């Protein structure tokens, strides 16, 4: 089966679309902000299973009324008896907060409760975690930039990094738009997206490099188009198998992995798109030709 789709016709339109999405994402993050979880904001999280079916979310909410604590946010979590309670960080010296909270809920609801998960992150630790997360993402981008620069030429490494940036920012933009929580596992997802998107880009770049020396008469647009077409079935098959795995986590893997797998699904889709429509067209702007490759090779020899 020979696919021959003219991607280069779409390059311009795709670039405009990417640019708009990118700007909208930044605007959304700047205006609406990101919904940080307790990992990065500090606070207390309780996953509660209420065995008594007559108890409603507002019963749980009102059980906190007599306590002097920060904002309380309660939502159903997975199935009907499970609730996720998040309590905003207020002051640091609330030493026995968790036991007080537990006692208070138990007393007011007066029924059997299962505290499935209790987490509390102090303000100092949460800011450290956020910092570590940002450093990790920055470092991974830098490491990718460096790796591509060694393996290819600088034009490629800038193209790849722009594609990665595009993926990370738009994924975060969607999280901001949907007010999905950003926690430690989302950072893990972003880093994996960086790895995955890079993986996709490298495969196409490898082919572009090969084709540049094979067909030295063709211009970069045609080379990109040819290379994308040649690797297209691989790109799609791998995306499908990865998405199959991710959807099975998203649907069957339980509530805790939902955010993580959702971020990954977005990332894989955006990453596949960007390898084709962002990373490759960018090479054109750097005037990559057969000669660029030759020069580099001479340098190595």
């Amino acid at each position, binding site marked *: 089966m020979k696919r021959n789709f003219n991607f280069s016709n779409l390059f311009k339109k795709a670039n405009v679309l990417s640019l708009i999405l990118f700007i909208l994402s930044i605007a959304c993050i700047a205006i609406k902000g990101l919904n940080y979880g307790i990992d990065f904001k500090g606070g207390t999280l309780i996953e509660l299973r209420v065995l008594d079916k007559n108890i409603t979310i507002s019963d749980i909410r009102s059980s906190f009324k007599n306590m002097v604590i920060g904002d309380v946010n309660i939502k159903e979590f997975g199935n009907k008896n499970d609730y996720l309670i998040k309590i905003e960080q207020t002051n640091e010296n609330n030493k026995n907060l968790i036991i007080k909270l537990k006692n208070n809920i138990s007393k007011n609801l007066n029924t059997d409760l*299962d505290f499935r998960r209790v987490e509390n992150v102090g303000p100092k630790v949460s800011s450290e975690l956020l910092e570590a997360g940002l450093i990790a993402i920055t470092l*991974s981008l830098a490491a990718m930039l460096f790796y591509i620069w060694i393996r290819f030429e600088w034009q490629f490494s800038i193209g790849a990094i722009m594609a990665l940036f595009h993926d990370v920012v738009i994924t975060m933009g969607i999280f901001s738009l949907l007010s999905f929580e950003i926690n430690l*596992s989302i950072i*893990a997802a972003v880093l994996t997206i960086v790895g995955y998107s890079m*993986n996709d880009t*490298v495969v196409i770049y490898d082919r572009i490099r090969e084709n540049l020396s094979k067909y030295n008469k063709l211009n970069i647009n045609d080379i990109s188009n040819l290379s994308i077409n040649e690797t297209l079935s691989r790109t799609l098959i791998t995306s499908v198998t990865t998405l199959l*795995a991710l959807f099975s986590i998203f649907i069957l893997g339980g509530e805790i*992995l939902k955010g993580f797998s959702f971020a990954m699904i977005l990332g894989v889709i955006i990453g596949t798109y960007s390898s084709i429509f962002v990373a490759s067209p960018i090479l054109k702007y750097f005037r990559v030709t057969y000669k660029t490759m030759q020069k580099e090779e001479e340098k190595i020899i």
Partner: protein
Amino acid sequence: MLNFTKSKTISIYLTFLIISFFAFLNFQKSENRIIDKKVNLGLDLQGGSYLLLEIDTIPLIQERIQDKVIPIKKLLKKNDLKYSNFRINQTKIFFILEKKEYKKLDNIFFSKKENNVNPYIEQYKAHELDMKNNSGTIVINFSKYGTLVLNNAALKQSIEIIRRRIDDVGTKEPTILQRGDKRILVELPGIKDPERVKNLIGKTAQLNFRLISDTSSEFGFDKLISESGEELNVSKRIIMSGENLIDSQPRLDNQSNKPTVSFTLNRLGSQKFGKATTNNVGKRMAIVLDNKIVSAPSINEPIAGGQGVISGNFTFQEATDLALLLRSGALPTPLKIVEERTVGPDLGKDSIKSGTFSLIVGFILVILYMIFKYRFFGIIANISLIANLLMLVGILTILEATLTLPGIAGIILTVGMAVDANVLIFERIKEELKTEKSAIHAFDIGYNKAKITVLDANITTLIAAFILFAFGSGPIKGFAITLGIGIITTLFSAYFIARHLTSWFVLSKKNNSIKL
């Protein structure tokens, strides 16, 4: 690329067999293990508590600077240095000295030999204390290294005491580790009552015996509320402290049938206690724990022999815990819980269930898709995928790595991404088959040309996994480990196992045409 020597083939399959053998060790019965290696379950899967504690060194420094007051005053007097306005503010000592005499003090204060007031720390080539002359006002405080020495000693001692307390509660396989220079990480798998343990870990448990006095003594007094609610003037002078305790046990009082805590003192403690109780018959003595009065009994008769009983309004659990705290000793400085994550055993079980289920479903979907796409070669890719998973679990077992819920996600993701190596190769071969007449040749070139791409593509993911491992904490580290090892096993299974199977098939068919 399709030729395998016999020794190469043997070593490939031998490596595979040895590594995947370890994967099966996880299914051994726990009683008679041949090789005691298995994948550990993270706290998020087996349930338990993760606590991050931070020591607060400021109270310790305040206490230690207080201890320096008398030696410094003695030093000044001994050397005829006239000082005035001597005072302590938080962590600093201030006094005023005449200008001419500063040089002399400076020489004595920073002498390196036999300096008991301000010892020289050989390790850091610095003195314990710093001294500054602020236009006549002398300021003394702990130096950077002096503080560091105090901090490190306090951290070590705290870890020791926490270990004793946790061992005493009887938790299975706790982890207690130093994290950075101020923190202690405690992991308590399978713990039933996290609040009790938290309470035990977080208590400083500084116990002391002090007299209650109505007249103001030269030491001054603290106003503390007793267990029955009355306000008492407790002398600041400490008769005896918890350091002198050698044992402590919960007891039931014979007469009142109430829980009490008995204690046994060492020789020095018995002497101090005996002397104080002899001299103060009729007075009341406060037993103070962390600046709260536990009880304030009257001294009816001198207590010799170094045995005593603390009776307060305890439940039996409280008496047991107090005895435990007294036995394990006081923390040198208060500890704060800065991060805490507790997962109940139910949630852990549910996570294992849903994690494993989604792994199986993801695995089956990928396998079916590969067969649909590549038919016979799909089966080869699937065999290599199974080999890949076995080796991944095998390596996790060899490393005795900790499997977390994100770690399971990492395995599922590996399943999805591992086939990529084979897809890259097969697609390449397909292209070569279009131009090459000989199938063997096409396969050979295909494997060869795809090699670089496969390597490049996987190294990028490996970089991401490595950074994640370096910066991630707890469960996320588990994800990085499975993702990273998954890449290595993927490369091995695609380039050795799948390639060998392919070559065996292609070479056996010789001149027949092969469709991919």
